């Protein structure tokens, strides 16, 4: 619902929310009950799955790059709309 909002900033926030929830899903899939984070140590028996962590790590940073590009575009859209309204 936030994605279909009339307001542009709320759409971008909704997009970020959506991305975060997808990351939640994938990292939640990789958890092992009663285990430790995937850093090898001599005391632990079972570890959580490291692969989703890796993929989501880069996904977060790429997400912020695209979101900030969205912010810059929204600012320019608003500028253009303001020019159209004024003239």
């Amino acid at each position, binding site marked *: 619902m936030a994605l279909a909002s009339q307001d542009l900033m709320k759409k971008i926030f909704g997009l970020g929310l959506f991305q975060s929830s997808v990351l939640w899903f994938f990292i939640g899939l990789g958890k092992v009950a009663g285990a430790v984070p995937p850093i090898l140590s001599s005391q632990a028996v079972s570890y959580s799955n490291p692969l989703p962590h890796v993929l989501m790590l880069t996904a977060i940073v790429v997400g912020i790059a695209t979101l900030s590009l969205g912010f810059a575009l929204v600012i320019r859209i*608003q500028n253009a709309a303001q020019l159209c309204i004024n003239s």
Partner: protein
Amino acid sequence: MMFETELLIFIFISVALIVIAMIRSNNILIITLLSSTFSLFTMVLYLVLDAPDVAMTESSISILAIIFAIYAIKAIYPVTYIFHDPFKPILFILSLVLAAILIYAAQDLPEFGAPKFNQYYLRNSESDTGVISVVAAVLASYRGYDTMLETLVILVGGLSILLISDGQAKVSYDKQDKLVALMSRFMLPIILLFALYIQSHGEISPGGGFQAGSIIAAIFIGLAMACEEYVLISKNKLKVLAVTGVGLYFLVGLTGLIAGVEFLNYNIFFGQAIGIMLVEYVVGMAVASTMILIYLGISDVASKSL
């Protein structure tokens, strides 16, 4: 961990409340505030789900995203922060239908907490690469192509923001508050040291290039926001740094080709552990400079529109 199930239930309920408030809200400032609270809860969730690397990345990067969002809000909303957002019931019903479909599809997933995955990385990463943080090993060695091209994607995003701002990207250094500038200068060496610590310990504990890069970017952005000219990083040097970051990654991969085996196989030249360390430093440099470039670009676009 002791209260895991209760903690997960608490996080889910509070995040549901936060998201409902965000969607129904009318006021962009409240949406920004709730978005930062959402990322705080996301970070705690990642910690509970045994993902400390992802938690560190999420916390430091969502702060940068909120900073960029505030600059955009300052430029877009001229008089009031309240916008008109009519409630459409058809969308609510559609999203409920989508949620029902997803929950139905989730019945097929394996049980929460069951260890049913390929254990190859956990078993062989220490003998193959020599680092004990499996996440760093997978990131830089087993999935090195992935990381290289995603760093390139981040760089392209930053450069296109500079394109939108006509490449000027100035920061105005007037209206400085002495106390804020003093405290930012005070925190600079502490946070830089901390970022170096996280960067270099990426192989034996949670950490690595992405986290350290965003922390370095955060302190320089803080200095620029305090209108402090003490540490002045020009935009051209930043561009050179960012492109060098990605370029060096390619070069480290090329050493494999020079030595006669395939690209990004730096086992022959350096050994895997040193190769992973080099790659992490390069990624940290690229991420830090790209984030500062994005900040300069967005603050310039925002100030030109006022």
